[in-house]
């Protein structure tokens, strides 16, 4: 207990107190207007107050042009269909194309001369010094040790609580998890990486996951571990892949294609479980494609600043979202549909420029209508028992799962009955949809609430990190992933304790379920990609971050 609180506290405090100083990539010099440091890879130049490089002259359009980084010395300039046009060295820019800018090139917007210069060596040095003064991410060793002790204690508790029912495979899974955790940190530490708080949080939550899985059914622990390891691998792969923005952008059409296929296959071959047809079986392997599509959904929703001003890109995203929602509606998967819809709203809000707002709003309205029509009866049924689960005629019917969750959860008190000692496992979906109650019962309210705080911390970090963000692509990715985590946690937790109708979604990292575990870990890559603390993240090239 104390150990768990210690682990989380260190990680949370470290994540929330270390800040990245924005890096200066160059200077934008304006005639009679002085020079602006360029702190992002992507910058809007314009009259609008929200423009990154603000030129308050009426002859300049609100959003005149986008200046984005190409390499150390070069920048790309793209006109945003500005009223008076943008000229480089006397030549007017075609708003369909991007133009390579050399340092010192003469840029004219609305009659104002400007130019871009690289930072001087001295300034680079200063900046470097500033960044070195940033608070370093906390060293991982103490937390690592704490988690390992925690894992060992968990195994002891499980053995005591479950006696002969526990299997060797389950115990081995914990050992493998600990080994992988140490290997992961040691390896990347030796590569010079420093920030591991997010992974520590995820490893901690995963430990609880394995404990829940074991308590529920020890024979499935190993399978859960395999999914977890696949998830870690996928996360590492994604982190490395995400480093290169151009490469990432190129892979998106493929992701769209795969997602469309996956959902289609799900629709055709799907198997119903608890009302929603969101499972498919490949041989003995069962999976939920929508969990994986979630990952793609984030990347597809994100875009570079330039893309956000591109209608085609916006339309593409809107159509893809609509398709996903339609599929989920057909699958009767209300919970996941809500997650997608919520994420769509947040991402749209982030994306919406002046003209893309219309398209996005229209699609949102359409999607809403679709959801209402499709889920009307289903939702009415769930809403009927919502808030009334303790009514005598509901507590054993529509409120059965919620009343059991709260009742046995409360039985756990603040400190829990101990891993393996719970009774909630006798209730259907207790290790997935009702996992909050499961944790309350076996681990106590404090840890259950701390798990929620973990998710909140991750999302707060995502929001804080974008101040030093390079591209809106990473920003939107991080916020999209945070939104998915937040909404999922909300639906899961609130659903099981009657603060919201029960929708049956998983708690990221904590709920038992291979696909869910895999996608939770992979989703972490989006957070890592926005972590701009120096050398902290393996999703950012060394020295660059």
């Amino acid at each position: 207990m104390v150990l768990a609180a210690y682990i989380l506290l260190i990680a949370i405090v470290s994540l929330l107190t270390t800040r990245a100083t924005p890096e200066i990539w160059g200077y934008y010099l304006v005639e009679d207007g002085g020079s602006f440091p360029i702190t992002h890879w992507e910058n809007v130049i314009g009259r609008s107050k929200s423009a990154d490089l603000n030129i308050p002259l009426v002859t300049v359009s609100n959003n005149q042009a986008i200046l984005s980084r190409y390499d150390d010395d070069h920048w790309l300039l793209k006109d945003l269909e500005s009223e008076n046009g943008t000229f480089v060295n006397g030549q007017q820019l075609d708003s369909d194309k991007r133009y390579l800018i050399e340092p010192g090139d003469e840029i004219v917007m609305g009659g104002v001369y400007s130019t871009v210069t690289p930072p001087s060596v001295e300034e680079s040095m200063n900046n470097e010094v500033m960044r070195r003064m940033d608070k370093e991410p906390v060293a991982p060793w103490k937390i690592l040790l704490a988690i390992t002790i925690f894992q060992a204690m968990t195994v002891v508790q499980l053995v005591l609580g479950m006696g002969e029912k526990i299997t060797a495979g389950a115990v081995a899974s914990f050992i493998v998890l600990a080994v992988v955790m140490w290997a992961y940190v040691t390896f990347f530490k030796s590569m010079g990486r420093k920030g591991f708080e997010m992974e520590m949080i995820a490893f901690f939550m995963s430990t609880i996951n394995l404990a829940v899985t074991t308590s529920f059914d020890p024979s499935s622990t190993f399978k859960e571990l395999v999914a977890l390891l696949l998830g870690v691998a996928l996360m590492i792969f994604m982190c490395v892949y995400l480093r290169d923005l151009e490469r990432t952008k190129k892979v998106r059409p493929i992701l769209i294609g795969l997602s469309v296929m996956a959902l289609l296959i799900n629709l055709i071959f799907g198997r119903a479980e608890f009302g929603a047809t969101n499972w498919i079986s490949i041989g003995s392997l069962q999976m939920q494609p929508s969990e994986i599509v979630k990952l793609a959904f984030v990347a597809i929703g994100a875009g570079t600043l330039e893309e956000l001003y591109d209608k085609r890109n916006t339309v593409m995203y809107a159509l893809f979202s609509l398709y996903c929602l339609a599929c989920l509606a057909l699958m009767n998967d209300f919970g996941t549909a809500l997650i997608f819809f919520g994420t769509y709203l947040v991402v749209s809000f982030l994306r919406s420029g002046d003209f893309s707002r219309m398209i996005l709003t229209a699609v949102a309205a359409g999607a809403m209508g679709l959801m209402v029509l499709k889920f009307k009866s289903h939702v009415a049924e769930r809403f009927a028992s919502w808030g009334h689960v303790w009514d005598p005629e509901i507590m054993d019917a529509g409120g059965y799962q919620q009343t059991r969750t709260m009742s046995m959860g409360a039985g756990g008190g603040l400190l829990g009955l101990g891993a393996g000692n719970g009774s909630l496992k006798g209730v259907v979906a207790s290790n997935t949809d009702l996992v909050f109650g499961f944790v309350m019962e076996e681990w106590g309210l404090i840890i259950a609430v701390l798990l929620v705080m973990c998710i909140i911390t991750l999302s707060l970090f995502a929001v804080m990190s974008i101040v030093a963000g390079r591209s809106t692509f990473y920003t939107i990715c991080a916020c999209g992933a945070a939104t998915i985590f937040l909404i999922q946690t909300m639906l899961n937790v609130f659903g099981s304790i009657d603060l919201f109708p029960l929708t049956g979604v998983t708690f990221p990292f904590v709920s038992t379920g291979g696909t869910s575990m895999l996608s939770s870990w992979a989703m972490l890559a989006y957070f890592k990609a926005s972590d701009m603390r120096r050398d902290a993240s393996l999703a950012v090239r060394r020295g660059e971050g």
Partner: protein
Amino acid sequence: MRKQERRALICLLLAFVLFAGTGVFTYRYFKDGAKWAGFYGNTQIFTDGSINRGTVTDRHDELLLHCSPDGLEYSDDWTTRVSTIHAVGDLNGNISSGAINMFASQLIGYDIVNGTYDTSANGKTIQLTIDAEANRTAYNALNGRTGAVGVYNWQTGEIVCMVSTPSFDPYEGVSEDNEESIYFNNFLSGAMTPGSTFKLVTAASVIDNLADRDEFSFECDGVNQYGDSDTEFRCVYEHGEVDFREALAVSCNGAFGKLSRELGGKALKKTTDQVGLSKSLEFDGIETAAGSFKFPTDDDVRLSWAGIGQAQDLVNPCAMMVYMGAIANGGEAIEPTLIKSTSFIDEIRGAKTIGRYLDESTAAELKDMMKNNVVENYGEENFPGMDIYAKSGSAETGGDDSDAWFVGFTNDEEAPYAFVVWIKEGGAGASDAAPVAGQVIQSLQNSNYYE
């Protein structure tokens, strides 16, 4: 980028909603956690729907119920089982106010920090405030009649006797035709016509409102016609000329009808509300039935009936008992309780007051008049060794016989009891209900004098 940065704050909003929701739940957990944990769906502590740990005893540690995974084990004695079942509760939770249901969370040893964690799995022992011997006495005294007996210590609030009949033996099957009434606790959940016991409320109102009450006089001819010739406030016999004090002692309907008219509906309603008879009481999580009254301001006849405890007056026995306690306690009402306080802190803090029902002087005058009732009418010799203050009632409810009431208190430092006895169609209060009260108080004095 700046625009996106600012908009990313929407994630903070989501995070806040999650945080706030978790906060709301945590609050509910602290507020209702005990109730949740005691829910029969909790299979940690319920086997086949019945609680599997914990013990319930009376105030002298006499075993009333022991719960184990093998089932419920009640007292070996039939009379004990039948007379305490409404206090203890039954297997199926039909008696909602029974300890097994109301105090399930204490029984299972729940606490906020450890939940139901209990290495011995034996649960806790709840000591009820009732005296099993007094309950047996009351049950036997009711002798098969439908009724309710409640006695509490008006200083500490401890309910020492609580019996409701008809009752049943939890070990025996229950026939369906009387299922409703046997589960019903008349004392806590009943509301019945108070008859003349209500004159104690009217009298309190007179003391508060009529300064010239000493000059009051009424000529009782036994029939006491009023208004048109159809309306009669009959008395048991011709009382002749009575003053206020005498009117209560002989329970003269004619005189109290007149007093009610002099008071008016508003004053009567105010006093009734003030002495807690129109509200439900809440204690130990139990909510008693609320009484209901109608005191018309434009109908003298019905107002008169209401003033003598007839018409639409309905009173809850427990509330009546607390009112008796308030008179005894100088006007201050003490909240009843069914659980013996276990903590030292509770012991020191003492009884919880519900508030002031009457002015001290009003309570004193009423008390004096209640003593007078006993001396003049019921006979002190019928209550040997008891310093008793009381009022009887015989409520007309349209049944074969009137409902017999006897309410009051003893003023004894060692045994300060307020009591209420109600027997459905039991006859006259003074002759039929009073002996039940006498026997129960006697039994209580015997077993609790030197505790």
